């Protein structure tokens, strides 16, 4: 039987999940320090309980531990996300108007994202940035897929209303 206590298995779980645990907590609280601490805390707990947690359950365990760490945190910091400059190597020159417009839109999106309820923002960003499927997010959050679809729908709806100034 494969065991989380085995160094190679544990290492691969770490490599596959530490970044997502970090992002998960960052999307919730916008605090890199907390996110880093959550990664350490979650994996230390997993190691301590490696005999009790099967490899299949390890993922869900990590997010539960990370989440529990900040159950009492009421106020989240501002989530600061970067925008990849995907046009830097492109030959097409963009008009200054276009660049400006894009920057303004990104600013609006940032504000709208920060205004979202924490669970909607987390779901939206895990899907958009980390490419997590609804089923995976549902597993992390310990809720149904339907609940995640609801969060996603509301996130998009709220973002648009905010950006369009409704």
């Amino acid at each position, binding site marked *: 039987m494969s065991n989380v206590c085995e160094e190679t298995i544990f290492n691969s779980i770490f490599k596959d999940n530490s970044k997502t645990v970090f992002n998960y907590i960052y999307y919730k609280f916008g605090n890199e320090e907390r996110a880093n601490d959550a990664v350490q805390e979650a994996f230390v707990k997993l190691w301590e309980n490696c005999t009790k947690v099967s490899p299949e359950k390890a993922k869900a365990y990590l997010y539960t531990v990370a989440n529990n760490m900040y159950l009492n945190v009421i106020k989240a910091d501002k989530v600061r996300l970067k925008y990849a*400059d995907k046009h830097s190597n492109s030959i097409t020159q963009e008009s200054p108007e276009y660049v400006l417009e894009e920057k303004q839109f990104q600013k609006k999106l940032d504000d709208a994202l920060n205004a979202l309820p924490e669970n909607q923002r987390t779901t939206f960003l895990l899907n958009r940035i980390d490419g997590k499927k609804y089923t995976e997010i549902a597993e992390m959050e310990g809720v149904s897929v339907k609940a995640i679809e609801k969060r996603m729908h509301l996130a998009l709806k709220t973002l*648009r209303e905010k*950006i369009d100034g409704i």
Partner: protein
Amino acid sequence: MQENYLAKWLNNELSEEELAEFKQSAEYASYQKILDASQKLEAPEFDVDQAWATFKAEKMAQEVKVVQLNPFRQFLRVAAVIAVLLTGAYFYLNSAEENFSTQFAERTQLALPDNSEVFLNAASKVSFNEKKWEENREVKLDGEAFFKVAKGKKFTVITESGEVAVLGTEFNVENRNGFFEVTCYEGLVSVAFQGKEHQLPAGDSFVAIDGAILTTEAVAAIQPSWMENESSFKSIPLKYVLAEVERQFDVTISTENVDTEQLFTGTFNNTDLHLALESISTPSQIRYKLEADKVLFYAADTP
């Protein structure tokens, strides 16, 4: 439009009609713009290798403190329990000893697995392992017993004082509180006492009191006298004689001004207490009083 259609749209789960309808809507352009912009979003830097290094350092420190982290210890613990259970079961199954004992004023007779006979005198105990009898004819004895051993492999009687080994014979072994006596009635008996072997041909006795070997004298009988309800003694300290009376009649004996180290030679009857007490007190020139199950021996000249 179905429930949560925006989530379905992101997941390409809208039907063609729904998608067409959605694209007609005024909000579609905004949603598409949000989608495009979010495509470029990036989370803050996270260095997996750095995090792993931090984790390993933390883990090391933790492991020094929390020793039970090592899963191998868990395994050892389980293994130890299993080992104890198995060992316990092994010894239980292999040492399932048969025990026979007699109380005061009681005797019994038993047959060993090879039909050797054991006659157990009062307040005595024998035990042997029935499962291992085939390979090892061994009997543990505490007290006194007469053995009629069937012919066969070595037969050993183990007592605290010494071991008696025979091949097929009749002999008596008594071992009580420093008194050790072996009498051979038939065949040849080997007595291992204090690391030395003593060969006893038929008719010989081996007596040791408190570790000192007494000179042995030939016996004429064909079986111990107690088998015929008599207890015989030849130059045996009185205290052992009185102890035998206690065992045979289940009485408590006390003495007053009596030298219990004096040697006694004689026989007493094991069925009649008065007769037995007379047999002991007369030659020893002491008196006795009997009250219920208590006997007091006292010097003849005290009132």
